[in-house]
């Protein structure tokens, strides 16, 4: 086995990029602490927190008891005292026991304290299917948090964005739900810049948590997505180009609350046709919100109603059937064709 060259070592997959962002944030500010199940000694079941314990010590990198309400609740107390906790929820569905602390306290602490004491915590949630896991390791619960005023909800789809956004989330005074698409944790590597910065250079600091990114330029159909479905949308866009000569403009939403309304309406108006893709269930999902925004604001620019390709309003299946549930390139292609043929 050969040692990686220095140049190769700067390339990172999403796990390594998040890990680098966490190292940077902890080194920059000693108020940052990391809490969660198995985050210290093993570095997290996905290794996102690897190396933090050795570098920053057991007071700042803590393996906690197995209790999500306790983890989120004590993190809120730490934030009230002045620390900046980063919480790892081991898998998407494990957040449900912590939901009350998130919804009734984390989301409301700023509001309840005249804006003086926001619950400045980041809750990292590896989410989503496609990794052949047992029941309740594959949910996409982001809409629950979008529907909870007081939270910011973000979801990167590239290593470079992941690193910039985790650093920005930790710096942001408001509580941030940080959705991590575990299916593409190790999907590809990207060169990381010296400093945390978004892939499109769009904004700095907290702007990292409010802007969408154009992942592909096009004039015929705007496709909106985020997280693990962004690479699938890009594949479908290539196929649309090859087979139909249709050029799709792909928007990676990146931030689910607050949505980048100008990027959304701008892209939809530019193309006149739009499609939203996500793997979470359809009803009252992000797609419904994006579709409404477009219809409310630029309906006269549309040639067709906004389409949706999403997960279904059924429990995420046992994994033998998960590929039937998840949006695929074929389903996205078909959904796009429907909007184009309207």
């Amino acid at each position, binding site marked *: 086995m050969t040692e990686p060259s220095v140049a190769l070592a700067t390339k990172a997959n999403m796990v390594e990029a998040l890990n680098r962002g966490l190292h940077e944030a902890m080194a920059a500010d000693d108020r940052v*602490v990391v809490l969660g199940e198995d985050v210290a000694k093993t570095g997290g079941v996905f290794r996102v927190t690897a190396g933090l314990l050795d570098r920053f010590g057991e*007071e*700042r990198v*803590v393996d*906690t*008891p197995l*209790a999500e*309400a*306790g983890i*989120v*609740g*004590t*993190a*809120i*107390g*730490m*934030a*009230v*005292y*002045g*620390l900046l906790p980063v919480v790892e929820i081991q898998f998407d569905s494990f957040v449900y*026991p912590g939901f*009350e*602390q998130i919804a*009734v*306290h984390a989301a409301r*602490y*700023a*509001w*309840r*304290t*005249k*804006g*003086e*004491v*926001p619950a*400045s915590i980041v809750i990292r949630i590896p989410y989503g299917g496609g990794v052949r896991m047992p029941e309740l390791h594959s949910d996409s619960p982001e809409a629950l948090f979008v529907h909870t*005023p*007081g939270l*910011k909800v973000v979801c990167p789809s590239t290593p470079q964005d992941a690193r910039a956004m985790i650093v920005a989330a930790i710096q*942001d*005074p*408001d509580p941030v739900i940080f959705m991590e698409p575990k299916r593409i944790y190790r999907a590809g590597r990207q060169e990381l810049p010296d400093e945390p910065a978004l892939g499109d250079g769009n904004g700095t600091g*907290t702007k990292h948590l409010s802007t969408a990114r154009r992942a592909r330029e096009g004039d015929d159909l705007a496709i909106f997505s985020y997280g693990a479905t962004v690479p699938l949308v890009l594949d479908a866009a290539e196929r649309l180009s090859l087979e139909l000569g249709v050029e799709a403009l792909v928007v990676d939403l990146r931030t689910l*609350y*607050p949505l980048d*309304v100008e990027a959304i309406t701008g892209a939809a108006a530019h193309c006149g046709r739009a499609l939203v893709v996500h793997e979470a269930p359809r009803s009252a999902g992000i797609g419904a919100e994006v579709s409404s925004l477009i219809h409310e604001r630029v309906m006269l620019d549309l040639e067709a109603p906004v389409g949706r390709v999403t997960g279904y309003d059924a429990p995420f299946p046992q994994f033998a059937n998960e590929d039937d549930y998840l949006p695929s390139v074929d389903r996205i292609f078909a959904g796009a064709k429907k909007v184009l043929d309207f």
Partner: protein
Amino acid sequence: MSEILRIIGNGEDLDDREVPDGLAEKDLVELFRGLVLLRTFDERAVALQRQGRIGTYALYWGEEATQAGALYACEDGDWVFPSYRQNAIGILRGVAPSTVLAWWRGYGGTHGFWNPRDHRVGPICVPIATHLPHAVGVSWAAKIRKDRASALTWFGDGATSEGDFHEAMNFASVFKTSTVFFCVNNQWAISTPISRQMASETIAQKAVAYGMPGVRVDGFDPLACWKVTRDALERGRDGGGPTLIEAYCYRIMPHGTADDPRLYRDESETERWKKLEPVGRMGSFLRRLTILDDTKEEEIRAEAKETIAQAVRDMEAIAHPGQEILFEHVYRSGRPWNFDEALDELGSVERPAEVKPLGPPTSPGAGAEGKTQ
């Protein structure tokens, strides 16, 4: 199981015990002043609710010893996290009583909320037991920062059935935080008696499962409440970890102004407990010690009355908050774009009439307060 610590007798068959070390005469008077101020607030709040000047109110009449006694044991740097039953505890730490009244009047923002860091008093916690992990987090953070601060949190017997109680106790003992879990066992959670909350003999014994001390104290005895809290805080500060205190008492009053206990309990039992209530008991004790006389007591009561009367005037001087309050302080980092649109929409139609607190029920047992006179 540990005995119930009691210091103040009843002047009859129960003897007084020695005043604990650490409490001088002036401390006893200060403690009495705190009890009277809390009592005055509570009685005035009930009257305000009956007059339709504040909304539904959760009474704490009779539980002043668990509040003022425990708080008096805290150092200034210690944090306290109240439930709604300790809604006015902040007024003993510098929170304006008018702010607490405004909270019950349905006002938010700068009118009804305070900055917890100003007085190290957490916000009024409405959902049961969910503030316990916050107290653990604060004391844990203080430990990480090598600060001296401890945290104390109050909750009721019903809260011990909640998962957050157990998770908070467990985290505190695992990480040896300086946290005092002060359970006010008033034996009732609205209509549910303690026998329906648990099959354990005591609440204090639950501490055994978490490897921490569990102590029982007379919840109507302010000096005993002070003593167990002071011991717990000293132990915590010395690295001894958390303590669970069970303050055994009785909910003499209804759960709240909309509750009618005659529907579910024998009120002759309540009358028996009422004789032990802490303000009169502390006053009699101080008279036996000749620390208090009629003149001094009248002065303390008059001062409390004026403080709360002024608070009522201040509360009622607050203008009905404007619509922009809906969107204030939701995000520290600034208002999302859709908040401005929402305000525009609100401004495009006539504003609804001012919401007033609802009056009392038309008759005892009428239930919900939706019926006004």
